[in-house]
């Protein structure tokens, strides 16, 4: 007797791109603060990637409304217990962070860099928020499976991190970043995120038990196991470990991680609504 919200592809894209934006920014800020001078490129790509993604997210969020012109009504109230409410606020604030960090990423003056690093550390919080709140938003509904999934936010966050890193490495590959530019480190961080995501996913399923039926049986099961688990996590991990000396292999694995991240959002959002 429950009703589903009929959220469709725009919401799936929003969740997916928001995850990448959060993950890319967080990777950039970590590289900026903890990496060496060779990781500058990682930082710049991450910042510059998160900016347009957040902008697209904003557009998707608005277009998906029943009355898009009333999107500012989202900011009429601030409910700290309501993911949809703080999510809208956080998206706006995070957008400002990505903008400032992107602009500052072109500067090489020491004082600007120091400022950018500090801003990055605060921005990380909003990046993490954007990557995970969409999961908590689903789990705070009345619908089965979504509301049974205690780790939905944690899983979306892990996926946001791994897809954000994959996106950065893919851009490095495409723009021909030289070997001194932190490629290996992004890849290393991505491997860790993927392994962590697998662990979270396993616990997520274990905690759900039979409540996970919408994604484990029926038409979405093949997509979940084949698309997310095998193609989106296991194969890229194997590729990373056997072929991490070859950049092309690393690029292929990054593409697969992105595909997996999209499938995760797709399967979760669509399975109980079909």
């Amino acid at each position, binding site marked *: 007797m*429950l*009703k*589903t*919200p*009929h959220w469709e592809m725009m919401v799936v894209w929003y969740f997916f791109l928001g995850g990448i934006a959060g993950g890319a920014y967080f*990777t950039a800020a970590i590289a900026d603060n*903890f*990496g060496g001078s*060779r*990781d500058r490129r*990682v930082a710049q790509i991450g910042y510059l990637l998160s900016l347009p993604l957040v902008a697209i997210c904003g557009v998707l969020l608005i277009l998906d*409304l*029943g*009355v*898009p012109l*009333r*999107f500012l*009504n*989202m900011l*009429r*109230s601030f*409910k700290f*217990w*309501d993911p*949809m409410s703080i*999510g809208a606020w956080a998206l706006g604030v995070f957008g400002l962070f990505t903008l400032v960090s992107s602009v500052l990423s072109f500067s090489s003056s020491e004082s600007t860099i120091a400022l950018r690093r500090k801003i990055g550390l605060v921005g990380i919080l909003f990046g*993490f928020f954007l990557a*995970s*709140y969409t*999961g*908590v938003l689903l*789990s*705070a*509904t*009345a619908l089965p499976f*979504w*509301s049974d999934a*205690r*780790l*939905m*936010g*944690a899983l*979306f*966050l*892990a996926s946001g*991190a791994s897809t954000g890193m994959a996106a950065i490495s893919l851009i490095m590959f495409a723009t021909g970043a030289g*070997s*001194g530019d932190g*490629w*290996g*480190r*992004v890849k*290393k*961080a991505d491997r*860790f*995120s993927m392994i*962590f995501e697998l662990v*979270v996913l396993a616990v997520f399923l274990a905690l759900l038990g039979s409540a996970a039926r919408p994604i484990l049986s029926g038409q979405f099961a093949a997509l979940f196991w084949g698309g997310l688990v095998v193609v989106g996590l296991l194969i890229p991990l194997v590729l990373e470990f056997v072929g*991490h*000396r070859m950049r092309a292999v690393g690029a292929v694995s990054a593409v697969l991680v992105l595909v997996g991240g999209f499938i995760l959002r797709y399967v979760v959002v669509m399975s109980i609504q079909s």
Partner: protein
Amino acid sequence: MATTLAMFTDTSLCIGCRACQVACKQWNELGAEAPEWTGTYQNHSHFTDETFRLVRFVEQPQPNGNLAWLLMSDVCKHCAQAGCLDACPTGAIYRTEFGTVNINQDVCNGCRYCVSSCPFGVVAFNEDTGTAKKCTFCNDRIHNGLGPACAKACPTDSIQFGARETLVTKAQKRVETLKAMGFKDAQLYGADSNGFLGGLNAFFLLLSKPSTYNLPENPRLPQRNVVVDSLLSIVSAVAVGVGAVFAFRDRGKGDGDA
């Protein structure tokens, strides 16, 4: 605050005439919809953006092979702790001074979060207006000293309207009477303000257990998950963060590049 108002739907008195359903449509100017074959006399299967009162026909197989009806005129429960209200990011959903829950159609931007946050699946999305719709407890009527149209139209007083406290006392007496008459499963649903969701301002008298009517036995506020799930997300964030710091940190060993 004004007195908390309530609707008490006594299903034992319902004759399934659907006067309430029609009165609701008329007063609230809700459009006609194509009938839906549900396999029983019930139409529609659930609340829609044009159907806020709905008479449920629950068929009960009898030992002699016949079917008996349990009738129930269902409606938004105007929960004291309302999932839809807590979910609404625009503040379009608000509580009136009478304790009822209403959607301001001029503020709702159609995000549809309330649709998935009602434990009873009441709120429905209207494609034409792009907004969420549900029973208003005849907000215009109660602000002019009238009861809701459904209660007014009900010929058997199956739907009663009044001050919540008075109605609860009345309902409790009615349960006693019915029990004495042999309806041993007669029970109230949502009358207890210490019970689930802080009590329902549209509460019911049922002749069987709630699940027979497809009602949740123990509906819970969806927002109860936010704290735990957010904390677990933070744990996840710390884990990924620490991993990334380590990955970018080992400066001594060079870049780790191929």
